[in-house]
């Protein structure tokens, strides 16, 4: 690499040109190679991510996202983060780590969608129930408190946990940290009672749709508790997910078991689940 022009006589013009050509070739190979390397994590899908509401199909989403973070800035619960270099082409693109902080639609108007300058979060949707981020699944039924017939008492995920949710009865406009909101439940149904879709459905059923707008009313249920009859033992329950589920991740976030018993399958929608059931 190092020129030895200090020791040797000055290089000829031709020799200098040759070395510059070699260096330039190395530069092209280096930068070109590194940029192709950045395609690897994406092409191998090594980092599946839950995307914000309205995100187009993954490839289209990454193509159209300009990596500016305007969606990050408007989210009232700060659910959205920008990915780092390990996400390959997803670097700088928005994602949601639902277990850390899910989207609870407490902005009501899909602010991230409105903020997106490129339509990577499609402007074709206006309401929470129209989004399709993923689909909830009782991934660890064994640990689910409801399945064990147990209740829940205290703070969801302990006093240290920093996640926020909006509780309509406490503050209509501002989300609060959930460590300020203890629960006393005979049977744990957190994933159902805190589901943003179910909350909206309850409001609509009682004649008070969010913002007084009946368009905010989700037409289909997302999740409900189902009774399991088992032989001789106490009554058990399990949360069952329906096609109204949008995959916002609140159930995964608020599940009080050490590992979330209910999880979001990323990019899967109610339609996929229905297809699978038919097969």
């Amino acid at each position, binding site marked *: 690499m*190092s*020129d030895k*022009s*200090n020791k040797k006589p000055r290089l000829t013009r031709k020799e200098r040109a040759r070395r*510059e*050509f070699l*260096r*330039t070739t190395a*530069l*092209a190979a280096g*930068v*070109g190679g*590194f*940029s192709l390397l*950045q*395609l690897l994590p*994406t092409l191998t899908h090594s980092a599946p991510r839950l995307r914000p509401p309205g995100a187009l199909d993954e*490839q*289209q989403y*990454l*193509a*159209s*996202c*300009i*990596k*500016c*973070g*305007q969606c*990050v*800035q*408007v989210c009232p619960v700060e659910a959205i*983060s*920008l990915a*780092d*270099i*390990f996400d*390959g*082409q997803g*670097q*700088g693109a928005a994602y949601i780590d639902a277990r850390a902080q899910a989207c609870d639609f407490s902005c009501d108007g899909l602010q991230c969608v409105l*903020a997106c*300058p*490129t*339509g990577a979060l499609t402007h074709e949707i206006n309401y929470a129930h129209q989004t399709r981020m993923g689909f909830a699944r009782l991934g660890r039924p064994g640990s689910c408190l409801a399945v064990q017939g147990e209740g829940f008492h205290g703070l969801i995920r302990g006093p240290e946990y920093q996640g926020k949710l909006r509780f309509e009865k406490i503050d209509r406009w501002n989300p609060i940290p959930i460590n300020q909101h203890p629960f006393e439940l005979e049977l744990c149904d957190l994933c159902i009672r805190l589901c943003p879709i179910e909350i909206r459905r309850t409001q609509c059923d009682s004649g008070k749709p969010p913002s007084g707008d009946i368009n905010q009313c989700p037409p289909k249920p997302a999740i409900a508790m189902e009774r399991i009859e088992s032989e001789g033992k106490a009554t058990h329950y399990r949360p069952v997910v329906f096609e109204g589920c949008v995959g916002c991740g609140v159930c995964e976030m608020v599940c009080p078991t050490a590992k979330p018993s209910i999880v979001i399958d990323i990019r899967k929608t109610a339609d996929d689940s229905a297809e699978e059931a038919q097969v």
Partner: protein
Amino acid sequence: MKLGKYCVTVMLGKHLKKTPPEKISAPAKALHQHKKENGEIDKVKARKEHEIYRETHNKKWRRRRWASILFANLLFLVSYALDIQILEGSLTASRFLGFHMADLNSALQVVLAFKEVLINLLIGFVTILLMWLLLGGRTFCSWVCPYHLLSEFAEMIHIKLLEKRWIQNHTFNRKARTGFYIFFALLAFVSGYTVFETLSPTGILSRALIYGPTVALLWVLFLLTVEIFYSRRAWCRYVCPIGLTYGFVGALSPLKVNYNVKDCHHEGDCRKVCLVPHVLEWTVKGRAPEINVELGPDCTRCGMCIDVCPTDSLKFHFKGLSKKP
């Protein structure tokens, strides 16, 4: 206009040659001849004047420029951190008081990868296009780009090390940048991903400043290390397609640096401080085709050459507003 075309080819990497005599206007020719006959007497005096000037002159334009880079980037940070919503987003795309703005190169990457023109993006693109058309194209590089500022610090260290003879500078072929430009455009189109965005230190730095540090900063650090120890201003000079995108805009801009050959000592201090010395080829003795000639579109309007010139031969010029000497 022929000169303009020539300057674009120089930006794309054309090798510099002596200006052919038939391209030099009669008054310029006479002036070159006059200098040739009377120049040698003042050589020592001129060199002295340059040295004194270099040590005593305050770097007015550099101060303003650094202030501008810090202001623009901190405005992004403050807008988000204090939630005052003046400039939301980051350098790739933003809203200024609600108006869409989009970095031209990022917008091009998105359009090539996504293969659709989105209306908000188009509005942002046109806004920024008009803005930099007015202000000089690559003005973005030296007055806004955060990597430019870090790279300037790296350059200072690089020059110190050169003076101590601990390192050598290694140049690359300037055509490389044109090659990268085509490569990244094709890659976006073929792969369907905005691949350059994953490498762009401008985007990485802007996002890291606003949303918190990332591991991707190591890539920026690596680039700076290369620039310190191996090749001066390598990223901006030989790779960055953002610079070339804004360079095309700058070709049509009324804001340029004007060179007046009359008082110039042809000492070449301006070329030594310049990020893109090929735009200053007219300052070489006998090369200026006119008495007043504008620097090419690759010029970032940083004003370093103006700061270092003791004879005021280089000055900002806005077509139609300021008069040439």
